């Protein structure tokens, strides 16, 4: 008697994915299709698109830290029209649903980019990146204030007719409060988390290692923070959560699913090995089969309550 292969499919509101593995914004592009088979992904996610062109930050834009990395790329963008004309058609070569990440530096700018991309064929969902400095509030992140997040999300939801995912920053006192605001604004799902805010200095030159003083801190090092955020968000809202931050292996994926994520995104680990997402898809299928788990959905939020050990433990058996 042969058992059917495990079911990897999941749903994010009306968006059905064949598996829960997708790239993180900014760590993916059609160029990756030259070296790996993008058909096997659950979804594709673009780098954040702004309404107007932007050049991004000065060099160096990348630095390495213990088990992690810093980036100060700063979201260069060629603007909405160039995105539609040049980038979008290239993504449409592949069939997994395309999630377009959008950003802005004011509430109005988010509504503007949403309006310009609304109804464009080939866009399955939007991911609203609220980890951008709010120029109207002295550079405090858009995503740091619940009321601002709710307004941005509501405005985007009103303008588009596909699911709206909201991607949160971890650099806040209560990510649960921000998540509730996004849900109240009408979000279909929440992505947690964007980069931590970090910094690195070169003691020899006495300058920061990146072109801007602070930079986005990502990679395996941040996983414990991202996982905690996903758990907190999953407790706070009823909509699905997409986990991201430091995921590099199938074990990492299981942690995020158990903590309450319905899907996950892989960012920095795609730099380490461009085929990381595909390795994970394969390993996830094998793992579920080995463990007799029929559907990946059975793992979502399946964290057992209570501590891992209640008492002193006798010396281990060999």
């Amino acid at each position, binding site marked *: 008697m042969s058992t059917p292969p495990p079911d990897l499919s999941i749903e994010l509101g009306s968006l059905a994915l064949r598996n829960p593995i997708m790239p993180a914004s900014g760590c993916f592009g059609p160029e990756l299709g030259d070296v790996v088979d993008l058909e096997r992904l659950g979804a594709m996610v673009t780098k954040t698109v702004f309404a107007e062109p932007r050049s991004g930050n000065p060099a160096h834009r990348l630095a390495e830290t213990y088990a992690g990395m810093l980036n100060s790329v700063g979201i260069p963008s060629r603007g909405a029209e160039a995105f539609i004309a040049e980038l979008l058609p290239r993504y449409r070569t592949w069939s997994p649903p395309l999630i377009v990440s959008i950003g802005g530096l004011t509430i109005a700018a988010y509504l503007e980019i949403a309006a310009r991309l609304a109804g464009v064929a080939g866009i399955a969902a939007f991911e609203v990146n609220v980890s951008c400095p709010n120029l109207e509030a002295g550079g405090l992140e858009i995503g740091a204030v619940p009321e601002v997040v709710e307004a941005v999300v509501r405005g985007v939801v009103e303008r588009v007719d596909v699911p709206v995912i909201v991607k949160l920053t971890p650099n806040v006192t209560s990510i649960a409060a921000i998540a509730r605001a996004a849900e109240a604004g009408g979000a279909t799902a929440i992505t947690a988390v964007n980069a931590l805010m970090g910094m690195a200095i070169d003691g020899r030159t006495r300058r920061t290692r990146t072109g801007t003083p602070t930079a986005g801190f990502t990679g395996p090092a941040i996983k414990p923070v991202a996982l905690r955020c996903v758990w907190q968000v999953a407790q706070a809202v009823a909509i699905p959560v997409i986990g991201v931050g430091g995921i590099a292996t199938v074990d990492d994926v299981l942690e995020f699913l158990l903590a309450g994520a319905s899907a996950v995104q892989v960012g920095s680990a795609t730099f380490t090995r461009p085929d990381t997402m595909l390795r994970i898809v394969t390993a996830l299928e094998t793992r579920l089969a080995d463990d007799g788990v029929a559907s990946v959905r059975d793992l979502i939020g399946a964290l057992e309550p209570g501590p891992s050990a209640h*008492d002193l433990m006798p010396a281990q058996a*060999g």
Partner: protein
Amino acid sequence: MVGASAGATGSLPRLARLPETGPSAPRVAPPALLEAAVVTHGLIAPEYWRLVLDAPAIARTVEPGQFAMLTVARGEESWPVLPRPMAIYGWDRAGGRIEIVYRVVGEGTRRLTRWSCGDRIVTVGPLGRGFVLLPAAQRIVLLGRGIGTCSLTALAGVAAARGIAVHALVSARHSDALVGGEAYRAAGAVEVREVVDTDGSSGVGPVGAWLAENCRTGVDQIYACGSDRLLRLALEMARATGTGVQVSLEAHMACGLGFCHGCATGHPGLVEESPLVCRDGPVFRHLPSAPVA
């Protein structure tokens, strides 16, 4: 493994520190920090490695049941952050050497295997309070399973040298995982019984019978390490016969010295935390029916 012991230990009887002073208090010398050179390092059975370190300051004072903290981070590297506690399996006081036997379990022990002869490992020891041989003891039983036996082998040597009859049980999942039998024999144990899961000889039935047989003819103390099941058998026997039990515990550790409080448990509702495994243990005695002394 952790999961398994967690549930099971919930109902273990209370354990107490060994006495601070008197004949049944363990001998404790201050620990040393040194960069110990690797003298011998190699596989002794599938997954099991033996490591001999040149560590005179530790070899000088170590007592059976004590352990050392081994830093797994190499050279100038800053992680893995936590050092690994390892029982001191044996030593050569004159030669200044200590011996560790470990099983490859996770990232830490996997990295340990990469050390080669001449490499220097940051090592702190001897740590903790080890086993106590009662002054009048004539016959003792040692129950070890798997790598847990590592804590007991040195005790056998010291006991045998004092003329105490040592009866040792070595239990494992399969014959490749039988660690310590030879060390017991070399130390002069009068009986070494090796039992494994694969042929059923390690089951509660046969081991219980062996233990009962030994206890019937008079045993002064039972020492256990490495298994809930063995510990439970020992405690049952202790309740029935009044024999004292000493057990070696494990806990995740950071400092090994007693200041980080990582190796204790705080019981919700209680104002006192449980003993520190690194400083008050790792050897504890069973309470209340069987005091050590």
